[in-house]
C-alpha cells in the first residue's frame, strides 16, 4: 500500500462541516471530466491509488482509466462497497429482502440465479453476499483493484448486529474471486479488530478515523493508540485533519509519529492542497525516520 491514498468524498458532495460547501463541491464536480482533472493532478504528483465508493459515477472514471491504460499504467483503484445510499433507500421501499433482490444481477446467468436463488431459499447469506460483491465490482473489470473495502456504514452495522460471518464471507470472496486483499472501513476500530480476530481474518487492512483530537474514534483515542501499539493490523488513517479542526502540519506530524499507520487517505480538490499534503507527508516521514 502506498503512503498516501486519494479519497473521493470531495467529489460527491460529502462534507462533514458544511452543507453549503458540500453543495458547492457537488456543483463543481458534476462533470466527470472535472473529477478526472483532479485525479490527473494527484496521479502526476505521485498519488496513484484512488480509494473510491462504488458510486454510479465512478463507473465513468473506471471507463476512462480503462480506455487510457498507457496514461494510467500504475493507477490503482481501492473500491469501497457498497454505495450504501442506494441500499438504504431501497430498504425503505422494499424491506431488507426486497432490497437485496433488487440489486442481484438479473441477466439470467445460470450461476447468479443458482447462487442467488439457492442462497435466498436456504437463508444462507453467502451466495447473496458474493453476488452483491460481484455486482458492485462489475465497473472495475480489467482494472487493478488490489484492495477491496467494505464501507463503514455496512461494517459498523454488521459489527453492531453481531453478523461476523459476513466479514469472513466478504474476505474470502474478495481473495478468491479478485485476488485482492479485503479491507474494512470502520468508526469503531477497537471493537472491529476483536470481531475480525474472532472470524480468523489475520493482519487485516482497516481504515478508520485516526487523528490527534479523537474525532469520531469510537472507543476513545486511548483505545486506538493501544490498538496501534499492540494489535497486528495494517492501519489506514482517514479524517486525519478531523474535518479541518487540526492544522495540516500538526495533523500529519502526529500521524507520522505513529509508524504503525501504514497509509493516509485524504481528499483534496486543488493542486496546491494535494502537493502540500504530499510534501508534509514526505517531510515528516523522513524527519521521524531519521530521528
Amino acid at each position, binding site marked *: 500500500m502506498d503512503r498516501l491514498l486519494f479519497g473521493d468524498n470531495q467529489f460527491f458532495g460529502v462534507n462533514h462541516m458544511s*452543507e453549503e460547501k458540500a453543495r458547492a463541491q457537488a456543483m463543481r464536480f458534476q462533470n466527470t471530466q472535472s473529477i478526472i482533472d483532479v485525479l490527473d493532478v494527484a496521479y502526476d504528483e505521485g498519488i496513484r491509488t484512488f480509494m473510491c465508493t462504488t458510486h454510479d459515477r465512478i463507473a465513468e472514471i473506471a471507463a476512462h482509466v480503462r480506455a487510457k491504460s498507457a496514461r494510467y499504467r500504475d493507477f490503482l483503484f481501492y473500491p469501497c462497497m457498497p454505495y450504501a445510499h442506494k441500499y438504504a433507500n431501497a*430498504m425503505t421501499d422494499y424491506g*431488507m429482502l426486497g432490497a437485496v433482490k433488487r440489486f442481484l444481477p438479473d441477466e439470467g446467468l445460470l450461476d447468479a440465479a443458482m447462487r442467488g436463488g439457492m442462497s435466498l431459499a436456504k437463508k444462507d447469506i453467502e451466495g447473496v453476499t458474493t453476488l452483491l460483491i460481484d455486482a458492485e465490482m462489475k465497473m472495475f473489470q480489467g482494472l487493478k483493484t488490489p484492495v477491496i473495502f467494505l464501507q463503514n*456504514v455496512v461494517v*459498523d452495522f454488521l459489527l453492531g*448486529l*453481531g453478523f461476523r460471518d459476513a466479514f469472513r464471507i466478504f474476505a474470502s470472496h474478495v481473495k478468491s474471486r479478485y485476488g485482492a486483499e479485503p479491507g474494512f472501513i470502520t468508526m469503531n476500530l477497537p471493537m472491529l479488530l476483536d470481531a475480525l480476530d474472532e472470524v480468523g481474518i489475520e493482519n487485516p487492512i482497516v481504515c478508520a478515523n485516526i487523528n490527534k483530537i479523537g474525532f469520531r474514534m469510537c472507543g476513545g483515542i486511548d483505545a486506538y493508540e493501544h490498538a496501534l501499539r499492540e494489535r497486528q493490523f495494517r492501519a489506514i488513517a482517514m479524517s486525519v485533519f478531523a474535518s479541518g479542526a487540526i492544522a495540516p502540519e500538526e495533523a500529519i506530524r502526529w500521524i507520522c509519529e505513529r509508524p504503525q499507520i501504514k497509509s493516509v487517505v485524504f481528499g483534496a480538490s486543488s493542486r496546491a492542497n494535494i502537493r502540500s499534503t504530499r510534501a508534509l507527508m514526505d517531510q515528516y516521514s523522513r524527519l521521524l525516520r531519521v530521528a
Partner: protein
Amino acid sequence: MIRVGVAGLGKMGLSHLAMIRPHPGVNVVGVCDPAGYVVDVLEKYTGLRTFTRFEAMLDAGEMDAVLISTPSRLHSAMVRTALERDLHVFCEKPFVLDPHDGEELANLAERRGLVNQVGYHYRFVAAFREVKRLLELGAIGQVTHVQAEAYGPVVLKPKGSTWRTQRSEGGGCLYDYAAHPLNLVNWYFGEPQRVGGTAMSRVFSRDTEDEVYGTLYFEDGKTAQISVNWSDESYRKMSTSVKVWGTAGRIYADRQECQTFLRDGAVVPEGYRLGWNVRYTTDMTPPVWFYVRGEEYSAQLDYFANRIAAGELDNVNSFRSATVTDRVIAAMIADAETGPRTERSARAPIPKRPGWMSWLRPAAGVK
C-alpha cells in the same frame, strides 16, 4: 444490565438494533418482526433470540424496556401493551396518529413511572441543541419568525406503495419528513395556537403528499413557516434546517453547523461576539460508544438507557412532547382539507389616513 427487546426490523429497527446491541449497559434479549425471513437470518447469523409476534417476545422472557420501530399506525397499541407490562418504551417517530392516544399513553407512562421517549433524533444534534441553548439565553432577543425546512430524495418517481406511502399507515411526507422540523419548532417554542395556509401536494405519490407547507401561529404573535419536500433529488440525503429571526439577531442551523448573527441589543453568550458566529456540530459533539450513521442516533439510545439506569423520568423527547407534534400534524391535515379561505377578490381594509398631528409622534419602536 438493562434488558431490551427490539420490535420491528425495518430500516430504523435494524439501525437501532445495531447500535443498542453493543451498548455496554444493555443486553438485547429478543427481537421481533412479522417478516419471518428476516428474523430467521438474524437468528442464524447473530445468535439473537427472535420472534415473529410482539406478545410472544414479551411473554418469552424478562425484560425492562422495548424499542418500537414498526409502521406508525401500530405504535399506539404496541406502546400501550408494553406500558401495561411496566416496560420502559422508546418509540420511533411520529409517535401516534391520533393525538388523544398520545395523551393517554403519556399519562399511562407517567403514572407507572416508566421512561418514555420518541425517536426525534435531531434533538441530539449539537447544532440544533445550540439553537435551543441560544434561545433559552435570549441571545437574539424577542423571536418574531421561524422557518423550518426539510428536503431530501425519498420519492423521486411514481412507484409501488408501501406503508410509508399511505397516510392511513402513518406514512407520507408530513409524518415522515415534516414531523422533524415541526418537532424542532415545538422544542424551541412550544405548541402553536393555530395553523394556517397548509398546502400538501403530491409530486409523484399516489396515496399521500410529497410536499408540505404551512404556517404556525403562536400566542405571542410569532409565526413559523414550514417548508418540506421529500421529492427533491438535489439533496444527497435528508437535510433539515431552521432559521430563527429575533429583534437582536438571527440563527441558522442544520445538521452540520449553527450560524448566529448578533446585533446591538443581543445577549452575547460566552465565547460569542456581535456579528457572525459559527459553531460546528463536529466540534460540539461528545463521543459515542458506538457509531453507525451519525452520533445523534447513538446518543438518543444511550440517553434512553441512561434514563432507565438512573430512574429518571424527565425526558427531552418524552411522549408528551411528541404528542405536541402529533397535534400540530393533525391540525395541519385538518387545515389542508379546509383549503385556503381568502378569495382573490377580497379587499384589504384601507388604512385610515393619519391626521397631521401624527407626524409629531414617533413611529413604534423608534426611540
